[in-house]
């Protein structure tokens, strides 16, 4: 009898110790991420990382993030490695974050290319991947049944050009040329634009891809001109856009409408690279911070407040990447504040629960079952001259328009 009681007591104490250990709050929330310190993605990636760092500094100044599972604030610790824009290195570093650093939160690097290698790893290790700007539609296929990914900002890239296609048809444009760099992000936009235009009755008179590293577009522009398009849409990374706009400006060719995506993402970077003359009247998407969400924001600072605080802290001017990095921090923060348990599955459930109900400086946060962002949309904008210089302004759809479009664009003097 005494032996049995003793055994029960030992078992009871052991289970109590075990359960206390399991529920003991960590001293820090380890957040693992990568950034590209060099290479093709460095300019956007470092800005995105700076936005995330700024969020981490802000929450740590208040004692950390509130974690509902423990009912208290816990400081966050960012663990970040430089993947040098290399997917091979990124794969190994994501693995290191998961298996050696044992991070609680995993955040992907900038863009689809550097995010792609994190997805299978996150799924294998059952850790939720916070995808900041990897918008390739391939990441969110229902057939994959992957619940370990959430796109925190921007819709999937295959959704982006739908508004553009409608705008082109509204202008009465019949002949469209589409040129794209051979990567997921650009290809999915090009394919969507092509299929949407065809549905709307337009003719795609030129549709070709170029290698990502293309730095000279002069001969390609002449080929496009042979097809006599009324509008030309070029999809690529910022290096492609810069080279394309530079070569168009010096080609002597004229197209009534020219669309490139990257001024929406890094307006100042592209403007400084190609100069005002080459940017004038070019069309692009419009995304935060060019769309300024202030009154609508229900969670976190307004865009104006964020910009003021960020620049005051010594940060550079903000762009979409900076906003995306900071916004990811806000979504992580909200997931931790709402998740009943401190587990990956519980965070995912919490995200589903608040999806569509919070509005951040980046727009409405709403994800579908696969984790794809469906709350935000990208209006079409045009780079127009203003008294203070060039400005990318929303021109379509009407409810988002901040200025009247100029079509056809004036010929360059």
């Amino acid at each position: 009898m005494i032996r049995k009681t003793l055994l029960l007591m030992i078992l009871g104490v052991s289970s109590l110790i075990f359960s206390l250990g399991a529920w003991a709050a960590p001293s820090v929330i380890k957040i693992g991420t990568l950034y590209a310190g060099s290479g093709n993605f460095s300019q956007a990636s470092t800005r995105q990382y700076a936005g995330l760092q700024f969020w981490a500094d802000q929450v740590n100044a208040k004692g950390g993030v509130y974690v509902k599972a423990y009912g208290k604030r816990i400081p966050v610790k960012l663990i970040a490695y430089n993947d040098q824009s290399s997917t091979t290195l990124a794969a190994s570093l994501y693995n290191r974050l998961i298996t050696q650093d044992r991070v609680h939160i995993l955040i992907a690097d900038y863009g689809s290319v550097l995010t792609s290698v994190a997805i299978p790893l996150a799924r294998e290790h059952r850790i939720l991947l916070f995808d900041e700007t990897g918008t390739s539609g391939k990441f969110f296929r229902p057939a994959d049944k992957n619940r370990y990914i959430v796109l925190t900002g921007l819709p999937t890239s295959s959704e982006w050009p739908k508004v553009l296609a409608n705008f082109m048809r509204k202008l009465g444009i019949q002949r469209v040329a589409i040129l794209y760099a051979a990567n997921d992000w650009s290809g999915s936009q090009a394919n969507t634009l092509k299929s949407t235009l065809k549905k709307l009755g337009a003719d795609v008179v030129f549709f070709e891809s170029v290698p990502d590293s293309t730095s000279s577009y002069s001969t390609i522009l002449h080929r496009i001109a042979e097809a006599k398009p009324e509008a030309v849409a070029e999809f690529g990374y910022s290096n492609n856009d810069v080279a394309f706009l530079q070569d168009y400006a010096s080609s002597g060719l004229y197209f009534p409408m020219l669309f490139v995506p990257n001024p929406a993402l890094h307006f100042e970077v592209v403007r400084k690279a190609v100069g005002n003359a080459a940017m004038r009247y070019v069309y692009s998407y419009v995304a935060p911070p060019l769309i300024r969400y202030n009154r609508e924001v229900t969670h976190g600072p307004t865009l104006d407040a964020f910009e003021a605080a960020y620049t005051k802290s010594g940060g550079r001017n903000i762009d979409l990447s900076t906003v995306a990095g900071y916004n990811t921090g806000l979504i992580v923060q909200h997931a931790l504040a709402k998740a009943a348990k401190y587990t990956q599955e519980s965070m995912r459930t919490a995200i589903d629960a608040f999806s569509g109900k919070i509005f951040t400086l980046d727009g409405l946060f709403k994800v579908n079952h696969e984790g794809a962002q469906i709350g935000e949309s990208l209006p079409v904008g045009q780079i127009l001259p203003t008294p203070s210089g060039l400005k990318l302004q929303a021109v379509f759809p009407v409810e988002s328009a901040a200025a009247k479009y100029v079509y056809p664009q004036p010929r360059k003097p």
Partner: protein
Amino acid sequence: MSLFEYAVLAGLFYGLYFALVGVGLNLIFGVMRIINLAHGDFLMLGAYGAFYIYHLLGWNPLWAIPIELVVFLGLGLPLYYLLVPRLQKSGDPEMLSFILFFGLSQVIEALAVFAFGNDQRSIPTSVFGGAPIHIAGQIYPSSWVVSAAVALIGIVLIYLYLYHTRAGRATRAIMTERSEAVVTGISVHRVSAVAFGIGIASAALAGIFSPFMFGAIEPSMGLGITVTSFVIIVIGSLGNPLGTVLGGILYGEALMLMQTFLTSWSEMFPYVLLILILLVKPSGLLGKAVRSA
């Protein structure tokens, strides 16, 4: 004039520029038998020099030409004495130079990120007047024509140096047979140092026009340019500066014709060309049957 003819002339402009990009790398290899894997990084530094001369001082980037020639020639001389003689004392200077200059390339890139940031930069093409140039009924960017013209002048000057000056003849003697050049009393190190300086300065000269030829510049652009330069000089013939001109033009033509008719394959084709040429003529188009390294 058809698209084909447009592409051929565009390929000539592009090729002449790339001949200038590669000629310095080949000169250094020909004289010293070392591979300067930091070649593209010196080009990148030259590009930033032009960028800042334009954006900070408001000068036309063409002013960067005399400034950078002096600066980079001056940089090349001490760099030669710091690195190359030690390399040549080793058992395998060619292989060791790969490693050393790769390290130098990484250091330059890292320092450039600190100094210039990661953002892409460029110079508006309008600095050369903006209006495109009409040639044979077609329109070409003025920046391409200016770049090709300066490249041609640069290559001609290097040719005149090599074939019509005493130092140039000494340089060629070292390229032909280093040990015999030593016996004949040629100051090998002095001549080599000048060649090294010219090699680096020619890279910087090419860098001045890179914002127009590559669209934009960034600190990490160097390695890709070094690889392209290497392809060009291998096509032409390692160690033969004239071969580089041929290699550059072939590269430019291949790229532009492919961009015109098979756009998606354009970046790959020059490398296919390289493989074909190496299979048919392993020493390069202007190479001797046997290269003694």
